[in-house]
């Protein structure tokens, strides 16, 4: 399995696969299905300073090859997470990516300072891209200067490397990526969900109580691939790629686009065993592709020809 190992700032992963934040709770549910130590890492549900209940239901709606969700960052707050949710993870050989969110810069810094000191946490994932809360994410994620300022502040207080999770709901994602790289981000994770809506023909109202929700699942994969392909050529920090990954072939595609590791989100809801299944399929797929080590694939879609892609 050595041919699957990847090394990113703060993350020594035995394979490039991790469940994505918000799709894995704090791991307890999936630990009933398999040994979490098989995972390369795991991103836990977003932590905020105070407990949050989240949005009213219905919170999810199915779409063609995807789903909308507007959970609203429900979580028991950073203190409870550190006390009650993180300890059980120490029984696994599993680097933890702690996703953090907030309403203000002070919120983010407080959560970052606290949770980065927890021994189970390997890196932070700065969530500036949740589309489902009025405050607590996206307002930091659509303006490059605001995102950079927040990144700098969080970096200053965090005891662990900081990855910034980017929103696809921007006109120029490379500009966002360059701004947070310049501000000191150790890595990027991309993409968060795309803002969407569904309307019920019977009630003539949006299906989701929050009206809008974040679109995820296979439907958004081409968007993620395009954005990673573009951003990975512009930055020198590694990218954790995500967006509709549901097979080992998808993982290869993300790495060819320029991702150094790959997170799996919605597919966990369809099949709780999806992460270990993909991990077990990767070696054979690499062999078929004549690849000695999975890191050879990173950026392979643009490195081979050596020509820079057209900038947008």
């Amino acid at each position: 399995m050595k041919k699957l190992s990847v090394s990113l700032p703060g993350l020594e992963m035995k394979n490039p696969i991790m469940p994505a934040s918000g799709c894995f709770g704090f791991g307890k549910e999936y630990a009933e299905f398999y040994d979490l130590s098989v995972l390369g890492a795991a991103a836990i549900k977003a932590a905020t300073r105070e407990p949050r209940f989240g949005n009213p239901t219905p919170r999810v709606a199915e779409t063609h090859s995807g789903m909308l969700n507007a959970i609203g960052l429900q979580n028991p707050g950073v203190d409870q997470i550190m006390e009650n949710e993180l300890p059980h993870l120490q029984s696994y050989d599993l680097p933890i990516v702690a996703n953090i969110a907030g309403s203000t810069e002070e919120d983010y810094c407080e959560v970052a300072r606290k949770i980065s000191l927890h021994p189970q946490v390997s890196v932070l994932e700065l969530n500036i891209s949740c589309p489902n809360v009025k405050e607590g994410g996206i307002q930091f994620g659509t303006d490059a200067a605001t995102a950079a300022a927040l990144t700098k502040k969080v970096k200053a207080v965090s005891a662990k490397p900081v990855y910034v999770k980017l929103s696809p709901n921007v006109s120029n994602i490379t500009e966002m990526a360059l701004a947070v790289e310049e501000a000191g981000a150790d890595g990027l994770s991309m993409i968060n969900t795309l803002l969407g809506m569904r309307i019920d023909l019977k009630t003539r109202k949006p299906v989701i109580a929050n009206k809008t929700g974040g679109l995820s699942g296979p439907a958004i994969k081409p968007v993620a691939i395009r954005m990673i392909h573009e951003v990975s050529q512009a930055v020198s920090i590694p990218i954790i790629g995500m967006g509709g990954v549901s097979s080992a072939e998808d993982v290869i595609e993300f790495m060819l686009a320029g991702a150094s590791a790959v997170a799996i989100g919605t597919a966990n809801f369809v099949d709780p065993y999806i992460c270990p299944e993909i991990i077990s399929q990767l070696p054979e797929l690499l062999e078929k592709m004549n690849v000695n080590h999975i890191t050879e694939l990173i950026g392979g879609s643009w490195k081979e020809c050596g020509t820079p892609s057209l900038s947008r």
Partner: protein
Amino acid sequence: MKKEFVQVISQKEIAHQIFELKVQGEVIAEMTSPGQFVHLRVSDSFQPLLRRPISICDVDVESKTLTMLYRKEGAGTALLSQKREGETVDLLGPLGNGFPLDTLSSGQTALLVGGGIGVPPLYYLAKQLKRRGMNIVSVLGFQSEQDAFYNEKFAEQGEVFISTVDGSLGTKGFVTDVLKNEDINYDLLYSCGPTVMLKALEAQIPDANGFFSLEERMGCGIGACFACVCHVNGGAPSDYVKICSNGPVFPIGRVAL
């Protein structure tokens, strides 16, 4: 709790748009608690993407046979209704927590109140409670006669009252009208149905003791996605339960309906 491709034994439409699906598989031997559910993948493509939660209507542990009743409503259940004998279905389960069976003692009476597609899990419950020596009284509500099902099967377990909204079968109106008209003595209430029905029951019988099984849109079905959360009565604003993994069965009064 595991994932298995179970084999379809039979499938038939037993009432208007109501299908009875019987499947066989090893995992079914674990389905001993009425009120639990299974999560079915109805297609191996991405359309539809998510699984469908279906309640457990009956289980024969010996032959590892599971009976499910579902209403063909959207694209997912339409696909499920096309499954034929010999085909397989990707089943995850059993999920959730079922009805407690030891709250009553032998000789006591359980009142089972079901509405529409909330009726099926009460059948397995009725059988299990009867086996434990309890008396069963069932009140089943449907839209109309053509939507009604399993009346005779419930009658094998005890007394049955039916209500239909249009009056084409039994009492005209709702299950609550049956409870108003009939003088039913019981020790514990078990109910499953639409939230409006459970709310009406709570309002009509404020001191009711027993259990409600709740419904909500689900994502994962295992407690990870936080799609199906509910507020709890008397808790902090941030307190919650997840219907899929903390429920779907809760003591009456626990969940804010």
